[in-house]
């Protein structure tokens, strides 16, 4: 078990190493891409630091106060509509890039959260309240309201699809 975990962690570092080698090759072929990439990379890092801290605090709180039976009750197999509502609201309220939430969702999965709710949470990350004014500016109020509504419904459908397919694909 422990060896398996070490292997998984090593493959993650290999992944990073391969990406870095790829980036170096790209910069050797196209040196003009170096500065814009580095600036963009640095700006993302600066932006995600607060989210990283927020997720760290949330993970500590989950470990500290949230027991597996609580997750099973509110996000587990028998959570029903409550579970969908938690996933939708959680997804909409969550901030920062999608990949920042994978570690926390992984912890929730381990504690018994349904795959459908995790998928619905990720789908609703598309709806970002602070960005709504800009979205409305580009596409109009009616379009944004309709799209938001359709996406919330679609998130539940996606959750169900993910669960059904994963049940069959074991």
């Amino acid at each position, binding site marked *: 078990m422990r060896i398996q975990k070490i292997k*998984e*962690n090593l493959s*993650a*570092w290999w*992944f*990073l190493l*391969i*990406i*870095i080698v790829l*980036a170096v090759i*790209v910069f050797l072929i196209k040196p003009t891409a170096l500065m*814009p*990439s580095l600036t*963009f990379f640095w700006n*993302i890092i600066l932006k*995600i630091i607060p989210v*990283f801290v927020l997720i*760290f605090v949330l*993970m*500590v*709180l*989950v*470990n*500290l*106060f949230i*027991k*597996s*039976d609580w997750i099973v009750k509110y996000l587990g197999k028998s959570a029903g509509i409550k579970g969908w509502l938690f996933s939708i609201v959680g997804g909409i309220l969550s901030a920062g*890039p*999608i*990949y*920042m939430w*994978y*570690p926390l*969702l*992984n912890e929730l*999965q381990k504690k018994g959260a349904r795959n459908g709710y995790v*998928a619905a949470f*990720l*789908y609703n*990350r*598309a709806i*970002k309240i602070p*960005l709504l004014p800009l*979205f409305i500016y*580009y*596409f109009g109020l*009616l*379009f944004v309201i*309709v*799209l938001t509504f*359709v*996406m919330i419904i*679609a998130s539940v459908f*996606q959750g169900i*699809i*993910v669960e059904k*397919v*994963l049940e069959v*694909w074991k």
Partner: protein
Amino acid sequence: MAKEKARPNLKQATIKAARALYKSLPILLGVIVLISLANALIPKSFYTLLFSKIPLLDSFIGSTIGSILAGNPMTSYILGGEMLQQGVSLIAVTAFLVAWVTVGIVQFPAEAMLLGKRFAIVRNVSAFVLAIIVALLTVFIVNLI
């Protein structure tokens, strides 16, 4: 039934959270490097050239472009706004906007490693198809109102 473990104290909870984040750190950094590379290598005007004038095909193309690209949704609004001005259909732009945030080819390795390979495949494939359906449905409803 096995007795549930006692709740961890603050130190244990902090170490567990730090370990989980440390484990995901190389994957997250790799994804950010990939996004930065894609952003620097692909000019924004390039995307508009890829569309046809057939709505259904365009929604497929929109969903494909949105799936490949990643980043802040704000960038997708600006790109989508530019596409609309250059004559790309609203269905295609909507599929692009939806896929941008719901499908992540760049983040796929991170999602597969942390949430499970099968979960990531099924979620991304279904999100790709749903982006087209959501686009068709949204534009249909907007035109009705």
